[in-house]
């Protein structure tokens, strides 16, 4: 602490300082002075919270959309269900609109127009990210469901299983294995996209880094620090996905 004050005074007075002293001062003021690490910590908390909420919402939305759309697309020719067709149309529009507009624009519209009266910026951000992620996840899951051979469904159905059971025990387990890498990709993008919610006032990791950078007029340490935290989070995430993937492949002989 005393060292920090002394060296900082030396630096601002323009006296010669060693690289180590500069590193110490800049690092100290970026992370330790006034307990600034708390800001980052609560930022990381918000980032993870938003990621988890958005992830769950995205997967649920994506699953619903994918199941409806697959069910619609895989109907026998000439036996099109009207109700299914109706929902398929709506969900297709949802996917088109969400995938066709930038995340940032969606956040601005959700934060400043649709939820104009909400003060819970974090929840609005999580909701927006979840809805966004849902559209991408839907297409990934749909791809997985479509990739399972029709014969698998037919076999299941001819053994007396109903549609839901066939999906649950036959199609989905095979599909999950196929889509896991793509799904992991989407989750990683989602985790990093949480940094966008700072534009509507969500106080996540980047917001904290920005505040500190603005305080010290020194952007390198806070931003690089935030980048390292994101990187570590993504690496942990990747590791978990890897473990999950290996588990699912336990029965494979490849």
């Amino acid at each position, binding site marked *: 602490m005393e060292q920090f004050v002394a060296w900082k005074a030396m*630096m*601002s007075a323009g006296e010669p300082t060693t690289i180590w002293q500069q590193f110490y001062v800049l690092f100290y003021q970026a992370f330790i002075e006034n307990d600034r690490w708390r*800001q980052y910590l609560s930022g990381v908390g918000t980032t993870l919270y938003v990621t988890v909420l958005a992830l769950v919402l995205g997967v649920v939305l994506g699953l619903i959309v994918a199941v409806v759309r697959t069910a619609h697309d895989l109907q026998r020719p000439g036996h099109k269900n009207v109700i299914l067709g109706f929902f398929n149309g709506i969900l297709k529009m949802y996917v088109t609109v969400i995938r066709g507009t930038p995340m940032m624009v969606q956040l601005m519209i959700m934060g*400043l127009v649709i939820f*104009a*009266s*909400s*003060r819970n*910026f974090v929840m609005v951000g999580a909701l927006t990210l979840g809805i966004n992620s849902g559209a991408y996840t839907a297409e990934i899951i749909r791809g997985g469901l479509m990739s399972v051979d029709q014969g698998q469904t037919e076999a299941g159905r001819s053994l007396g299983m109903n549609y839901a059971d066939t999906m649950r025990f036959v199609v989905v387990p095979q599909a999950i294995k196929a889509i896991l890498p793509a799904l992991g990709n989407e989750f990683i993008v989602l985790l990093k996209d949480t940094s966008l919610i*700072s*534009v*509507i*006032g969500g*106080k996540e990791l980047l*917001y904290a880094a*920005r*505040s500190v*950078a*603005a*305080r*010290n*007029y020194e*952007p390198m340490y806070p931003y690089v620090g935030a980048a390292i935290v994101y990187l570590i989070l993504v690496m942990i995430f990747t590791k978990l996905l890897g473990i999950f993937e290996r588990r699912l492949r336990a029965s494979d002989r490849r």
Partner: protein
Amino acid sequence: MKKILAIALALCLVLGLSAATAEYKTVEAGKFIYATSPDFPPFESLDDNDTVIGIEPDLLALICAELGLTPEPYAIDFDSALAAPSAGKVDAVVSGVTVKEERKTMMDFTIPYVTIVQGVVFKTGDDITMDNIGEKKIGVQSGTTGQFEAVDRYGEDHVTAYDKYSIGFQALQNGQVDCIMVDDMVGAAYVKTIPGLEMISTGFEPENFAFGLAKGNDELLAAINEQLQKLIDDGTVEQIILKWNE
């Protein structure tokens, strides 16, 4: 003899010209590039042609004309604008920058040319005074003195920082924040354009605005200071400020 004279004359011309442009060291020769966050009327804002207009562009136009430089704005969010000169990207930050001791490690300030006080803008009819502001949600722009004042006095939980004042004022109209803490002259400009807002003064310590030049460019700093002093002395600065506050 004639030939020699001609060569000498040509040399004089060439040298004279190069001397005129190389007189001041800038990031790009002949240009004065300044970082600015153009959501800060009347100091700087964007018109429909995406041109930066306001008090400071007007002042810079006059000063740079005297120095033989062409001013060129580099529009960016305020907190990034502050960091731009020390990163060597621009010659100066000209964005209603308050002269602060801490900022002197990052930039060399010119002489100040205007004094402002923090103000608080809120929706007409809302019960907001300097006594109860501590219980309200305060919107600010990231990196401004308003943010530091608000956070230091009322705590991080009461403050939401936005990239731009324009987003902050939108949030105020939506009711997502209760008030905006902003330099009074800028607050007044927003109150004038957005109906249903009013402003009170915080009564905090007055702040001086100056241009923040990249450190170590002493010649340019001295030249700008000289021109700026002239403009202050003959009342031009005051006129320009009055014009943009009309």
